[in-house]
């Protein structure tokens, strides 16, 4: 299969990136700086990520918000104009089809960002379930997506558009950058303050070059993107959640808006609601938890988790080394009886038991700008 390329592909090569296949795209996993330094640079200054492989979709129409509510356990009707919200597509069994961001652009228009590996399936899902109720426009080939993340991101972007400095976490607005109409949200996937910028593909490289020309900014690859999001306790779809896990099992109850929960004003009405509500009431057999290995060895995805007697009680869903923490970090699913904070559990790594502790996430404090 031929790998797809983002509009920044030649720039990545020029910057000396190591490229790897990811979700059907040829993507930069790291630049010459290396994963560790890229990670630390993002937490200290600002990192630029090409996330153009992700799917951007517009929904239009007076009924678009209500239609989308039929697919997600999230309050979309009352999502204010100029705000973005985290959401989950659930399936009829209460599993998670994908996670996404939904922004209200005003004028009965919603802007969605979905995962690269799921985008065709998500688009088909929207078309199949709600195309009679609203207009669905794929921006897959029209828009690139850049993330500028880190404590200096605001200083950098404000040089191009001073108004972004006044935005707070999860705010969303149209912004002119280098004379081009972009969508900017104050959000990201690193736990740091920062922005995600949707830009027409033909203007993406010029914008990326302008941002990289600022002294605080380094290009950051998928390797550091993964270690940053893991330290921030953020889930990666297909690893930390999937159709096999409900929002309750994935410890994402917080992402289910109060009005859509069992006791809410608009309870249910999304796929799998009954099963999800039953789990919320009766408890789920397994839960996603944060895990801190107590030795230096990284514990990676797929490692079995055992209890003191050696009985298998779960599996690691994401794991690696946290450069800011200076220690390995992981998350995984364990039987709910072992999900309490500070419960001692063990991971099997190359036949040896590595002690771990169930831990609160995020592992590194999130530093979102809330005004």
């Amino acid at each position, binding site marked *: 299969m031929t790998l797809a390329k983002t509009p920044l592909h030649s720039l990545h090569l020029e910057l000396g990136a190591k490229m790897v296949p990811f979700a059907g795209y040829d993507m930069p*996993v*790291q630049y010459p700086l*290396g*994963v*560790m*330094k890229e*990670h630390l640079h993002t937490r200290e200054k600002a990192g630029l990520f090409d996330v153009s492989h992700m799917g951007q979709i517009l929904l239009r129409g007076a009924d678009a918000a209500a239609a989308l509510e039929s697919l997600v356990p999230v309050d979309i009707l009352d999502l204010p104009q100029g705000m973005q919200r985290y959401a989950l597509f659930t399936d009829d069994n209460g599993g998670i089809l994908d996670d996404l961001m939904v922004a209200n652009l005003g004028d009965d228009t919603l802007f969605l960002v979905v995962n690269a590996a799921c985008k065709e399936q998500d688009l088909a899902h929207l078309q199949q379930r709600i195309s009679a109720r609203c207009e669905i426009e794929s921006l897959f080939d029209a828009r690139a997506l850049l993330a500028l993340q880190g404590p200096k991101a605001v200083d950098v972007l404000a040089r191009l558009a001073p108004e972004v400095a006044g935005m707070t976490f999860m705010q969303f607005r149209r912004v002119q950058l280098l004379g081009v109409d972009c969508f900017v949200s104050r959000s990201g996937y690193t736990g740091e303050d920062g922005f995600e910028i949707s830009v027409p593909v033909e203007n993406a490289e010029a914008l990326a070059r302008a941002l990289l020309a600022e002294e605080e900014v380094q290009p950051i690859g998928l*390797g550091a993107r993964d*270690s940053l999001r893991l330290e921030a306790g953020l889930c990666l779809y297909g690893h930390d959640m999937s159709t096999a896990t409900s929002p309750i099992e994935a410890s994402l109850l917080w992402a289910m808006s109060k009005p859509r929960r069992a006791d809410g004003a608009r309870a249910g009405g999304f796929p799998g609601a009954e099963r999800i509500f039953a789990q919320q009431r009766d408890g789920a057999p397994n839960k996603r938890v944060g895990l801190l290995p107590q030795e*230096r*060895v*990284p514990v*990676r995805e797929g490692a079995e988790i055992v209890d003191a007697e050696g009985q298998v009680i779960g599996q690691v869903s994401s794991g*690696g*080394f946290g*450069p800011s923490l200076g220690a*390995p970090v992981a998350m995984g699913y364990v039987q709910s009886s072992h999900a309490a904070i500070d419960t001692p559990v063990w991971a099997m790594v*190359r036949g040896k038991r590595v002690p771990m502790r169930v831990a609160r996430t995020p592992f590194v404090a999130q530093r979102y700008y809330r005004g």
Partner: protein
Amino acid sequence: MSELRFTVDHEWLRLDSDGLVTVGITAFAQDALGDVVFVQLPELQAYEAGAEVAVLESVKAASNIVMPLAGEVVEINPELEASPERVNEQPLEGGWFFRFRPSDVDAVAGLLDQAAYDRLLKANAEA
């Protein structure tokens, strides 16, 4: 003999004056692996050639280090436990993994010399 020898697995070996062989990975290998965050070193015991004796964990993934020749591991680099980044910073010096007594000391000379290893890297780069 202080001249380095190499394997196709990008390990280097140095036969020291005490008859022991020091083992590490090459600059090329550490660059390909990325930042090393953990090294699991071998036990002090005899291993067959090709045995998986150590594990390098980079930020990205785990890789196996194999025993380049049959022999008995007699010493491991104590610095790597606290400072695994030595493998990246000084792959040919402070980043060594272990020292072993080869079952057949003459086998060391049969491995790739610097010129042959450089040709291997060049061929890999062109492949």
